[in-house]
């Protein structure tokens, strides 16, 4: 079920909300939790009920393993470490099986010249997210950091519908205590108002801004071979803003929906396009993934060295980003994207180490363009498509809108041509205007997290937020998926 669907907004969310608080009101605290788990599983199954047993099995298995790791009973058949390794292998195998098999076979075919058939397995919804969260839980159970043993709380931690599909990637330590806290069972108008406020902002970001970019992005990437220089830049910028407003809009909606239930999800974005360095960028973009990668990938790699040096730390940084790239998708484009970010982080760390200085504007300019250019690999279907767009951006023909021909005709002597950009002059104009507006929103305005912190239930806010909400509701006819559903 999509957050930006009528079914979710007018049916699922009100029913889940009322049911939860009604049960709590009648002191059926455990019943309320069961209700929320059942609602979440219903939410998950709405997409495709076939994957329901998979998530149930994954939850059961991981819970059982974590219990074994926490309790570490004497006389057990295997050691704690063996159980832990089994758990890790099972989780990673699940991910590999569904996500990476075809990628693996394609590469084997390429190297060996064989022609093994691809499996064409459909990627179960949210598998990357719920597997990560459970790996973190297993690791912490192994390291003795897990205190919670309640199965219902654990199930809720994994399946809680606002974060189930595309994050934020939540940590058991911040989630499970919230499910047990008694005051969270009470109807809280402040949280509900804040939730409605942030949900409306997220819906507007997704429906009005991100979805407006989608057609130009599709158009640009589908016609990568025939793009001119300006079209190449419009395409890449359109994607850079589409993915930001799409994903941060989704996160806002998730945070808003969770707040209705008095649950605070972690912040996932902090104005990433204001970043003045790639380290800064990763502390602002998909923050919960950065924390996960740092804690459960980077740190263990680093800890595996007997002596930590700068070079080894950089190796760990690169390896972590390489894995992050691969986690995002089974394809060379994602590996290139992850590797480029890994390199950039290494350079940025070296820059800091050597205590060099750079003007803020130049630092921002380099960072933003790096993110924008590497984003092409993230979106492209293959490396060749990414190459085509990069070629267009840097060596493409310079074509200006045909409307400027009479005024700038002398530029023709320099090889500049005039024509309809992006298929239509109207689309080019609209895309350009929206890109300018998006720069303004991303760089000048407060981000959602700052807005929710400053939230005051004033009449002025009401006058702003209600039209945004209504406009989004009435414009949801072109429902599209969230980009991060694919990962």
């Amino acid at each position: 079920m999509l957050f930006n669907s009528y079914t979710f907004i007018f049916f699922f969310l009100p029913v889940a909300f009322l049911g939860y608080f009604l049960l709590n009101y009648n002191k059926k605290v455990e019943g309320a939790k069961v209700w929320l788990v059942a609602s979440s599983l219903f939410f998950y199954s709405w997409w495709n009920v076939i994957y329901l047993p998979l998530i149930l099995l994954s939850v059961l298995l991981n819970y059982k393993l974590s219990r074994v790791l926490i309790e570490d009973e004497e006389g057990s058949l295997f050691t704690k470490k063996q159980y832990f390794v089994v758990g890790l292998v099972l989780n990673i195998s699940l991910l590999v099986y569904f996500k990476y098999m075809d990628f693996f076979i394609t590469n084997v075919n390429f190297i060996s010249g064989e022609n093994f058939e691809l499996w064409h397995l459909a990627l179960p919804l949210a598998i990357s997210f719920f597997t990560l969260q459970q790996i973190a839980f297993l690791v912490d159970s192994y390291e003795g950091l897990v205190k919670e043993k309640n199965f219902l709380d654990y199930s809720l931690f994994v399946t809680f519908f606002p974060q189930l599909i595309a994050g934020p990637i939540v940590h058991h330590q911040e989630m499970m205590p919230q499910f047990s806290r008694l005051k969270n069972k009470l109807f809280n108008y402040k949280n509900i108002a804040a939730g409605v406020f942030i949900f409306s902002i997220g819906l507007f970001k997704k429906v009005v801004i991100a979805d407006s970019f989608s057609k130009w992005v599709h158009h640009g990437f589908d016609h990568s071979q025939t793009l001119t220089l300006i079209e190449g830049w419009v395409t890449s910028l359109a994607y850079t803003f589409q993915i930001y407003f799409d994903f941060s809009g989704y996160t806002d909606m998730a945070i808003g929906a969770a707040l209705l239930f008095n649950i605070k999800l972690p912040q996932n974005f902090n104005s990433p396009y204001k970043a003045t360095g790639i380290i800064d960028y990763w502390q602002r973009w998909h923050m919960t993934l950065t924390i996960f990668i740092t804690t459960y990938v980077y740190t263990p790699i680093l800890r595996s060295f007997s002596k930590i040096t700068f070079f080894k730390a950089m190796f760990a940084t690169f390896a972590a980003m390489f894995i992050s790239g691969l986690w995002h998708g089974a394809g060379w484009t994602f590996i290139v994207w992850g590797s480029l970010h890994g390199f950039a982080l290494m350079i940025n760390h070296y820059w800091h180490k050597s205590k060099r200085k750079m003007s803020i504007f130049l630092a921002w300019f380099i960072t933003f363009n790096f993110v924008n250019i590497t984003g092409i690999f993230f979106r492209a279907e293959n490396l060749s498509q990414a190459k085509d767009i990069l070629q267009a951006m840097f060596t493409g023909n310079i074509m200006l809108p045909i409307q400027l021909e009479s005024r700038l005709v002398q530029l023709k002597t320099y090889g500049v041509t005039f024509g309809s950009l992006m298929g239509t002059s109207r689309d080019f104009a609209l895309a350009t205007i929206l890109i300018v507006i998006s720069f303004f929103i991303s760089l000048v305005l407060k981000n959602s997290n700052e807005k929710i912190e400053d939230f005051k239930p004033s009449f002025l806010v009401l006058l702003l937020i209600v039209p945004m909400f209504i406009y989004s509701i009435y414009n949801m006819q072109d429902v599209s998926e969230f980009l991060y559903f694919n990962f």
Partner: protein
Amino acid sequence: MYKRWLLGFLLLSLIIASIIEVNYQLNRKQYYRHAEDYAVNKLLAQQKNRDYKTIIMGDSVIHWAMEGMKLDPSVYDMTVTGSMTIVGQYMMLNRYLKYNKAPDEVYMFFIPEAFKEDTENTRPRIESIFDEEGEAELIKKVKLGQFSDESNYFYDRVRILKPWKQYFAKGNRSIDKSSVLREVSRDKTYEIVDQTMKERHLTKVVENTFKELQSLCKNNGISLILVLEPMQYIRYKAYENSDLDKFFKSKNIGIIDFRTIYEFEDKLFYDGLHLNQLNADLFMYKIDQNITTILKMNN
């Protein structure tokens, strides 16, 4: 304070929704299905008693391909910005002939689906609106159903609020978002088109209307030339050997298949349906060379 704010949120939302609803109820027209283009307004705005030798009819593919072209003064561009069924084409020509002199020839560009949609379908993929006085009666004679789109409550209401959308549509070509999205998955597109062609049969309504169209042209001394417009291969493949193809063959109705003149590459349909600028120029050139001289060349 927060409780009051939430009540305010609900109240204001309801007020705005009510205004939209009232606007919808006041402004909605009972129209007869067969679009959402501004063909009707476009025609009404034209002068009457015109005397053209050639009329070009067609949907958005042809309309946007012809955009900006200087036509010969004897040619009238009666293409529309949106989609158009064959029933819709008939109604338009009928209306034109009511007020103007009959042309010598009518070039009617069509996509196969134009023959596949009639008002018996509850959710047509393409449709045309006719709500001028008398037209509804005329349409009733061919037993068309009344249009009532409740497939999307919100969309139905918001489109009335968007007169600017139609304003922008005039003289402008726009990337069709849904087409672009369909383009992403060509196999899926083919499936949908193929399904439409197979499941939606040539109905009696369409057959009768087509007969009426032929009679209308014959009675007015008009040569009706049907042209299967440029399409992506997947769409063309769905058309081949379809009941429409068989219908034309069995009735010995000659059509000009544009693929026999020029085969446009699939990737040059900028959104999967419409021709990009380069190909629009090429398309007009091919028409001029192979079908009729409609362009004022060297202009």
